Structures are given as structure tokens and as C-alpha cells.
């Protein structure tokens, strides 16, 4: 403590002062680059559609308006996909955590065949069947166009398994198991009564990782769900954002009550895109802001080389 204090009081040399000033300036610019695009989306989503389309909205909302959000409330296709995204995210995260914790606990023990299991799992990180063979196998298994595939596909990740294993073997002492087994506890009881309650941190880490990955996935549905009524948010969003158009059917959905004219409809559906970005990104960013500590912890645990 004392040492740190003296270090800040050592007089900075001229070159170090210049460096410090430049460094703050540098980070000011970096922050601007990171924030501005996001800020621009936010202010555009609450600006007048005409001003947005004219490129007038650059620094602050112009002619503040909720019209985009009003319209998006009526966008039933989008909200249905929003619901599916929650279902897939919650289901996938729950399964992912449970399977990962079971496996990680087993791998933190010694047993015959552990090396083989370990190798089998790590190998999948470096070599995969590829898109097409995977697709054909899933189709043969009857999982094509079934919503359940959205929960199962990518349910486990090798990386998450490794951080969970590292966490368990370095945070839950072996002696605890030995003590428990003397009292007649077996692996099942020990896992549910001792390991899981002591693994709050790693479970939080796993849940945020799995949840964000599931929430942001558009590709699985694109490949495995032909029926777009099951599509999650990101897959629907892709149609709206990447094609640059809101489809005629979607427009009809939103403007059924108060259709004015083509040009106005176009302008408003343009703003709807900004609103769609906001409502799809807000859950992930909120999760991040609240669970920031856990996201960072996950990377830290993962980077510990044993």
C-alpha cells in the first residue's frame, strides 16, 4: 500500500507527462469511435423519420418522435420471434449449464477413461464435421425444422467446460469430498449439495456466456428451421436489416390501422429498423452491464494455464 502511494508521488518526467496527456487523448478518441455508432442508432430511433432519412440526425434527436416504437409494437412477426428467442435462450442456457457442470465436475475427478473423454471433447474444437455433414445428420435424426434443435445445437461449448473444470478443481477443495464421503455422501449428493451451491460464480459465468451466444445466433435457425414461424429474433432481424427493406407483409402488419402514403410508410419503416436494433440489443447489453464482473471473470479463469 505504502509503495503504491510513493509511486504516484514520484514526479513525472517531461516525456512521461507528454505520454500521459497523449494517452488520455488517445482513449478519448477510442471511446468516441466505440460509442458514436451506438449513440447514433439510439438518437435516430427517437427522431422524426423524415429527418433520419435525410441524414439530418447526427448529434442529437431531431424532432423527437416515438413513431418508430409505436409501429414496432404492432409488428407481431417480430414479437413472436422475440418470444422464441427467449424460449431458445432460456432452454439452451439451462441445458448448457447443467450438462457443462456435470461434465466439469466429473473431469475434476480421477477416473478411468478421463483422458479419452478429455481428448474427445477438445478435438471437436479443432476439427468438425462441417456445415453440410452436420445438416444431413440432423435431418436424418429428424431434428430438421423442429424448434428443439435451437435449444440443443451448440448447447455445450468446450471453452465453457474447461473454465468450469478449472474453477471446480481450484475452488472446491478435494478434502471436502473426502470428508463428505466419510459421512456417507456419494458423488450425486456431493454434487448437488456441495458443488453446485459453491459454484455460484462459475454458474453465473456460464449462464451469461451461453445466454448471449444463444440470443445473438441467427444462423442455426437459417439452416435448420424452414418454417419461419419458429424463427428467433436475430433471424427475423436479418431479413429486416440486411435486406434493407421491411417486407410488404410486415408493412401491412404495422400500418394496417393508419396507412397514409407510400413515402411516409417507407420513412417510418426505415426508423423501425433503428428501433428493432435497440430492442434486440438492449437485453444483451443490460445482461452485460449487470453481470460485467462475471463476463470478465470467465475470460480470466479461462486464461489461467494450469
Amino acid at each position: 500500500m505504502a509503495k503504491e502511494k510513493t509511486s504516484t508521488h514520484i514526479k513525472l518526467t517531461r516525456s512521461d507527462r507528454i505520454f500521459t496527456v497523449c494517452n488520455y487523448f488517445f482513449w478519448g478518441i477510442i471511446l468516441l469511435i466505440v460509442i458514436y455508432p451506438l449513440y447514433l442508432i439510439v438518437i435516430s430511433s427517437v427522431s422524426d423519420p423524415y429527418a433520419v432519412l435525410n441524414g439530418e440526425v447526427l448529434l442529437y434527436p431531431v424532432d423527437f418522435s416515438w413513431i418508430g416504437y409505436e409501429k414496432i409494437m404492432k409488428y407481431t412477426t417480430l414479437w413472436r420471434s422475440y418470444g422464441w428467442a427467449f424460449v431458445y435462450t432460456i432452454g439452451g442456457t439451462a441445458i448448457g449449464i447443467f450438462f457443462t457442470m456435470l461434465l466439469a465436475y466429473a473431469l475434476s475427478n480421477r477416473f478411468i477413461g478421463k483422458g479419452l473423454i478429455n481428448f474427445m471433447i477438445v478435438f471437436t474444437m479443432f476439427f468438425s464435421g462441417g456445415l453440410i455433414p452436420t445438416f444431413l445428420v440432423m435431418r436424418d435424426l429428424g431434428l430438421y425444422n423442429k424448434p428443439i434443435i435451437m435449444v440443443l445445437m451448440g448447447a455445450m461449448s468446450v471453452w465453457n467446460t474447461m473454465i468450469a473444470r478449472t474453477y471446480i478443481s481450484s475452488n472446491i477443495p478435494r478434502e471436502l469430498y473426502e470428508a463428505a464421503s466419510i459421512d456417507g455422501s456419494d458423488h450425486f449428493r456431493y454434487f448437488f449439495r456441495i458443488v453446485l451451491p459453491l459454484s455460484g460464480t462459475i454458474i453465473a459465468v456460464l449462464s451469461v456466456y451461453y445466454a448471449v451466444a444463444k440470443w445473438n445466433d441467427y444462423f442455426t435457425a437459417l439452416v435448420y428451421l424452414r418454417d419461419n414461424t419458429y424463427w428467433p429474433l436475430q433471424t427475423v432481424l436479418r431479413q429486416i436489416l440486411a435486406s434493407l427493406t421491411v417486407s410488404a407483409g410486415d408493412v401491412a402488419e404495422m400500418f394496417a390501422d393508419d396507412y397514409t402514403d407510400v413515402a411516409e410508410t417507407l420513412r417510418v419503416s426505415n426508423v423501425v429498423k433503428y428501433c428493432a436494433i435497440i430492442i434486440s440489443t438492449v437485453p444483451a447489453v443490460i445482461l452485460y452491464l449487470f453481470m460485467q464482473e462475471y463476463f470478465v471473470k470467465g475470460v480470466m479463469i479461462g486464461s489461467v494455464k494450469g
Partner: protein
Amino acid sequence: MSTTNAPVAKREKGINWAQIRRRLIRDWQLYIFVLPALIYYIVFHYMPLYGIQIAFKDYKAVLGIQGSEWVGLKHFKEFFGSYLAWPLIKNTLLLNLYGLLWSFPIPVILALFLNRLGSAKFKKFTQTVIYIPHFVSTVVLAGMLYIFLDPTNGFINILISALGGTPQYFMAEPGWFRTVFIASAVWQSSGWGTIIYIAALTAVDQELYESAKIDGASILQQIFFIDLPTIVPMAMMMLILNSGSIMNGNMQKTLLLQTAGNKATSNTIGVYVYTMGLTNAQFSYTAAIGLFQNVISFIMVMTVNKITKEASSISMF
């Protein structure tokens, strides 16, 4: 990449069957613990690996993966013989190589300078902010690019016009594709990429800095001689992990950013496999291309791992 602290099992000469049986019985519950994951990996990873055989067959849905007729290297020959092969390989390699060239060093540099922000509050704030883009989905990122790079009302082109330049058709010109792809990747991932380096830098012994200061080392010299060597091992690990992406890359993002206009540079192997395989149902042909891609990636990771191991004794295996 990490190992348990459990001591290595005692090696015994000869196989003691009775002991093995005893241990299998003692540990039966652990096998139950492994089972769900094992089934998952078999179904979602090993069955597709088994399915790779269709790369050497003429896949017919009625005959199935196993029943289809063997055709040897037909699909590989067809791919490498076609005029498409070289542009696809070149697009994939260049996109990922340039990508690695930018996205590998930038987090290192950012971490080195971030570590030198004196104010703890500002440092914390900066970290919170620069991680945010990591949580923006690929679809939203692509959507933002389409919006911001719009030739008439995108803010980038408004800026260009204001500065007296000519607006660019960023999303519709082959010449811009890689720049757009890589710049947006840097925006999205660089901040997040600093975490592990920052973690490594917190482990530096404070006394090292003290003695460096007493010896009259400037901040820049400290960064160069203390901080940089500290994070080199971690950086090497990241390089090994990323080297496999030279042939794979971010296919999902490429698919989102591909337009009719930029196809000349945006058509990569991954996107081609997706469109030809799933849209045109050329299963065997695209499985063969996918296999080629996977094998190259695998060789890349192994090679880079070996090189860094020899050069610096840093490796993953």
C-alpha cells in the same frame, strides 16, 4: 489448456484387471455425470464427423449417408478443376489474413495503453465501454453497416461529402468489402480482446516498475521492456488459436455482408458451401469443399503450435 491439480495416476506394470474393475465400480456415478455430455458430443460432433464420408460419395437422400455410392475424389477434382476454386480460396485467405493482421495486434496495443491510464475511475469506465460492442449481434452489426455506409444518407458518406470527397458505394463495391469487414471486426472485438492481456498485466510485480523508475526508465520504456514481454506468451496463445481461422473465418458475418455488388471479393469458401450446399442441395460436392477447408485449418493450428513451441516454448499441447 489447463489441467487439474490432481496428481498423475500411478503407472503400474502389467494390467491389474481386478483393480480396474474395482475402480470402474467405485466411480460408476462419474460415468453417469459424463453421459449427457458424451451423448451431446457424439450426436452433434462425432456423427457429423462420420457423415464426412459423403464427401467421397454421391449423396442421394433415399440411399442415406451410408448407402450412397462411393466416388473417390470426384468432388475434390471437380472443385479444384473449376474456375471458381482459386478465387474462393484467395478471397478466404486474404480476408482472414488481413483480418488477423489487424485484429491480432490491436488488442495488444490497446491493453498496453489502457494499463497506463492513471485514473482508476476512467480506466474502469473505459473498460466497461469498450466491451459493449462484443455484445452486439452479428446481424445488428451488419445492419448498422448497411445503415451507416448508405451512399446517400449514411453518416460515413455524409462525413465524406462534408470533407469534400465523393460518396462511396461501400457495400456494393468489391474493393471496399475487406476494409468494411475488417474495420467492423476491429470495432466489435478489439475491446473485448484486451481482457486477457489486462489480466496478465495485473500480475506484474510492482517492484519491477519501481526499480525501472529509479533507473530512469520512461513510461514508454517500461511498456516496451516490462509490459510487452509480460503479455507475449498470452499473445502467442491467441495467435495459435486464431491461426485456424485463416481458412475458416467468420462465415456468418460474410454471409450477412455479401451483396450482388461485392461478390468478387466477398465470395468465400464458407459462403459458397452454404449457398451451394443448402440452397442448391449439392451436398457431396460442398461437403468435400468443407472437408478441404477443415483439413487446412487443422494443419494450420498444428503448424503454428509447433513453430511457436520451437521458437518460444509456448504451446497449447
